[in-house]
């Protein structure tokens, strides 16, 4: 079971320093002192492993999904913060220079300024990095500035934390553990360098050009990219990629968007992008010919590997239609014979993305399309309100579609509700695919 293997690998990585400290055979101090040291060892190991839990490494994300990796990154960072914050407060031995005869530093806790200042810096820095991440949505930082500060803060915390361990740690004074910390820091920085330097270098040679930017619905745009040269992105319908439009390849100005095109349709990529009050408000002003870079693909929202599902139901909220449109287009382009159902929720009719194309898919591919509007126009014949358990009961349970594959994309509260309602309806969890990047 791959997910279980990742848990075992994670535990092995973060417990290595604690295990190496344990086998040193140094006489234990009071349990409180040992707890304090153990908290520090665990917190630092967790911080270093955070660097590879970034949702960009396909060896990890292909097994459990980028969203799950990012979520564990967020939650385990909070656990590491709690361990790190508690670490200094459990020491009960005196803060004093160890007597000469106390060669294993059993009677005192290292307190010299060169040993302590990196610890204070890492301690404060970690609190600031996590607090800034938690406040990200409410504070409304510009995304690229937030990414830069988050990365810089994390590097400072990791570097200062390792320096503190090497200078102050009773157990980290051991050469083996000392080298483990240095190797851990090097690997963590290498993981970051892979994202910030190596990946941009590789994609600098794979340029794209904006072909067109056209309206897809109210405040929603359809952006098409064409590769320059003979390259093409090898992706599966429903995946997403990081887009850098009009900036240098090393720029932090890149954002993740679902790919709405189908791989079978050719090398061009299409993205459906909604104006969300940030840089996306200017998508409509991007001129054809603008240079772009694409990093990806990422994500596991794809129907590949589910050939045994007798039908495919796609449930979208708002701009969540983008990856599902890619899946529908691919199913139609490859003449997949399985029946398809699209349940698509919006506030008003003008927000329905690619309404004409959806009609064509219904006509030509036989896709059953159900539009659900919370603010429908007068005379609206379809369902009103939100996509809820009642809609699912009528179109899933009563329609005998419990054994279909369900692919969900939309706002996180909607996804949580739909997942729970589908499971309540009797749909097995392994038949439900969804990706959500905010869980709080």
């Amino acid at each position, binding site marked *: 079971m791959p*997910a279980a293997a990742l*848990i075992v690998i*994670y*535990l092995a990585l*973060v*417990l290595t320093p*604690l295990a190496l*400290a*344990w086998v040193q055979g140094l*006489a*234990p*101090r009071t*349990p*409180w002192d*040992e*707890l304090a040291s*153990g*908290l520090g060892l*665990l917190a630092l190991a967790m911080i270093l492993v955070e660097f590879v839990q970034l949702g960009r490494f396909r060896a990890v994300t292909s097994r459990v999904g980028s969203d*799950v990796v990012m*979520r*564990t990154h967020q*939650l*385990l960072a909070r*656990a590491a913060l709690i361990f790190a914050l508690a670490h200094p407060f459990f020491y009960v031995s005196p803060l004093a220079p160890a007597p000469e005869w106390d060669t294993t530093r059993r009677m005192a806790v290292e307190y010299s300024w060169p040993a302590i200042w990196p610890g204070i810096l890492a301690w404060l820095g970690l609190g600031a990095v996590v607090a800034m991440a938690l406040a990200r949505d409410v504070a409304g930082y510009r995304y690229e500035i937030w990414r830069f500060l988050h990365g810089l803060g994390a590097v400072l915390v990791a570097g200062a934390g390792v320096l503190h361990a090497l200078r102050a740690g009773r157990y980290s004074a051991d050469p083996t553990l000392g080298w483990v910390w240095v190797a851990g820091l090097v690997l963590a920085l290498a993981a970051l360098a892979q994202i910030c330097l190596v990946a941009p270098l590789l994609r600098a040679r794979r340029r794209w050009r904006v072909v067109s930017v056209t309206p897809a619905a109210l405040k929603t745009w359809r952006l098409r990219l064409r590769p320059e040269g003979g390259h093409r992105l090898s992706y599966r319908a429903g995946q997403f990629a990081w887009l850098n439009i009009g900036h240098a390849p090393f720029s932090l100005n890149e954002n993740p968007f679902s790919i709405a095109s189908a791989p079978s349709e050719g090398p061009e990529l299409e993205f459906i992008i909604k104006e969300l009050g940030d840089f996306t408000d200017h998508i409509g002003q991007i001129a054809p010919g603008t240079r772009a870079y694409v990093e990806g693909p990422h994500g596991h929202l794809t129907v590949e590997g589910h050939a045994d599902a007798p039908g495919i139901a796609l449930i979208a909220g708002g701009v969540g239609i983008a990856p599902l449109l890619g899946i529908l287009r691919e199913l139609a382009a490859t003449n997949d014979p399985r029946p398809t159902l699209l349940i698509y929720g919006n506030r008003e009719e003008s927000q329905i993305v690619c309404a004409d194309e959806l009609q064509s898919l219904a006509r030509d591919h036989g896709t059953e399309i159900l539009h659900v509007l919370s603010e429908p126009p007068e005379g609206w014949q379809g369902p009103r309100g939100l996509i809820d358990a009642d809609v699912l009961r009528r179109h899933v349970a009563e329609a005998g579609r419990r054994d279909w594959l369900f692919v969900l994309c939309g706002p996180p509260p909607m996804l*949580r509700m739909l*997942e*729970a309602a589908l*499971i309540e309806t009797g749909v*097995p*969890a*392994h038949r*439900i695919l*969804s990706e*959500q990047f905010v*869980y709080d």
Partner: protein
Amino acid sequence: MIDLERSTAARRIRLALGLILALLCLALAGFALRGFF
């Protein structure tokens, strides 16, 4: 017993993190109290 067939993705993440944190705390307690063994 946990029925993973009837478990949402968010719940499975919570379960995995709960397991990880429980094992970390157990290891920490063992390390702190090893003087008594």
